[in-house]
């Protein structure tokens, strides 16, 4: 089967996943923390991983799928090497966040939620990190860049290969 977990992940990754499942499965309400740890480990939560969690933790697969697709922090697609998050919270929006988003979309040829073909950047929209004093901001791999001007974007992104 092409969806078999072993086609996507190494034995080490799978046994680490099993450890996460075992550590959480008996605690009520632990599905979300379990998925958070899983994503931290594997980078994304495709169907084959959801199936394994379902079997091992005895949670219905539709419930897992429902949670994964509900929360924006979970992804079913593999991420690129670097993650760009453009803040489009209100403060960043009124300070020019939209123009920044348009430039990145044009330069990289991606839309929100997509990755560049070379696997370099995943591009996401974010809703306020609470660093409004620095608006407009973008995050690359979690690092905050504040007061971003349109002509400074190339310089920021060139640091990430």
């Amino acid at each position: 089967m092409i969806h078999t977990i072993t086609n996507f992940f190494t034995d080490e990754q799978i046994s680490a996943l099993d450890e996460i499942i075992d550590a959480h499965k008996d605690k009520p309400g632990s599905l979300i923390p379990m998925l958070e740890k899983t994503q931290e480990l594997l980078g994304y939560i495709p169907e084959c991983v959801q199936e394994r969690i379902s079997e091992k933790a005895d949670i219905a697969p539709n419930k897992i799928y429902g949670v994964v697709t509900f929360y924006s922090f979970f992804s079913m697609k593999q991420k690129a090497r670097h993650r760009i998050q453009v803040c489009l919270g209100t403060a960043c929006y009124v300070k020019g966040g939209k123009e920044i988003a348009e430039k990145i979309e044009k330069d990289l040829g991606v839309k929100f939620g997509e990755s560049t073909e070379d696997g370099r950047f995943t591009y996401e929209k974010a809703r306020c990190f609470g660093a409004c004093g620095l608006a407009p901001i973008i995050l690359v791999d979690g690092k905050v860049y504040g007061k971003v001007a349109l002509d400074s974007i190339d310089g920021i992104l060139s640091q990430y290969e």
Partner: protein
Amino acid sequence: MGKTIAEINGIKDKVINQGVEDKKAIRIYVHMGTCGIASGATSVLTTLRKEIKDNKFKGAKVITTGCAGICSKEPLITVALPGQEPIMYEYVDDEKAKEIFSSHVVGGKIIREYAFLRGMETQLEERKKNNGKIEGEAVVDSSIPAIEEVPFFAVQEQRVMKNRGLIDPNNIDHYIGRDGYQGAIKVLTSMDSAEIIKVVLDAGIRGRGGAGFPTGLKWKFAAQEPDGMKYMLCNADEGDPGAFMDRSVLESDPHSVIEGMIIAAKAIGAHMGYIYCRAEYPLAVETLNKAIRKARAYGLLGDDILGTGFDFDIEVYEGAGAFVCGEETALMRSIEGLRGNPRPKPPFPAHAGLWEKPTVLNNVETLANIPQIIYKGSEWYAGIGTEKSKGTKVFSITGDINNVGCVEVPIGTALSTIVNDIGGGVVEGKRFKAAQLGGPSGGCIPLAHIDVPVDYETLQEYGSIMGSGGMIVITDDKSAVDIAKFFMEFCTEESCGKCIPGREGTKQILNILNKIDSGRGEANDIPRLEELASVIQKTALCALGKTAANPVLSTLRYFRNEYEEAVSKNN
């Protein structure tokens, strides 16, 4: 082993004499909230520590604090020499930090050019009383503005944020030294549930998450439920874009929230609590977890707190990125590990909340007020505010304004005071158009009403809401239709999809707004918007859905001409 009450009080005395406010030592405060760190505060801290080490300079204490309030001037550091007024420096970078170290810290010579102000926010009250003087602190350079002359700080009233800029959030002793955990000790040793609830009711505090429901009443309902499993929750899922008050409190003074939860738990009879914090706030989550571990080690959380026989513990629950989880029933579903879909009320959470048990959910800011209400009394608390709303409110002011930051003012303060005095007015070359309060559930207050007092009732009368405290200043280069579109786009994307008004109604409104904005609008689109908005208000399942049309209604109310103009182009 936990501590005894006598030991906690011993720490308090020791800290006052030797700790954060040790006036015999050279103190360098580095203000490190998320904003400060993003502006380079970590590197400034490393530089200062290296300078101290390289120069073998003994006797200087470096204290890392949370946010100092005025984000637009980050990174900020404060240098305090014995016998002298502290000096706060703005826009500090590594080079400036080196210069400040050698000139001011070592040489005793203030660098006027980099200085922002003299004095500390925690001294504000005393300075105001004594004509800007603090006993034992000499004024070295009076050409630097004194903190009580800087409107951003002078007009504020610090209660929730009374420790900001001074204490290290990771040091529980600092908090204890500032009357920390005295409220908890008071309720655990000498008050029963009814007495606690009475004080909170008399104080008149209303929920700071936005709805303004009396906190004491919420507690009373949960306390009346039969004994058994009950939960005390803290809503730290600050999702309104442009709002960061709660982040600032959590990063600067996490113990105030923990102490508030202990008091609330005692009042309602809960023994387990959760803080639901959004995952976009990694520093707040880390700070909270450290604070909880420390509180446990001191015996302030866990079994038999301080030997009083009361058990209560707290866990941090990290959200996974869904705005709707700020709604109380959705938040509880999320802690249960499910999709964060709201459910109809009743039953209210006080009766059947988390895992169908009686549950109280309070906002971060509400809880941070509680320790002082208990410690200083309801009369003290109700001494400021309006007739119907007591105490202070924290706002985060952002947008096209000069001083971006977190501000705390008595409820009822004029909007113009916040925008023009504290905020320093709009940025050069632009004109004030409106202040948007309450995020996607809120509305605008235009220039014509800029003098209105900011309280729950007045704002509602003018078509806005108090909300959780996000205040975005918009200038006249932004179109009202565009602002409405921004919020409606937010609501469509963040709708959980459960009820039709929330899922489809918001989408239809957005379609009409897009149509108007792109010049294809028709005359009857405006009444259609109003009709749709009123249907959503009446029929949506949860508060987020019910209020989703507010930004449209409020911009229509004050900037109808802009809608009409856009539509008339096509007719």
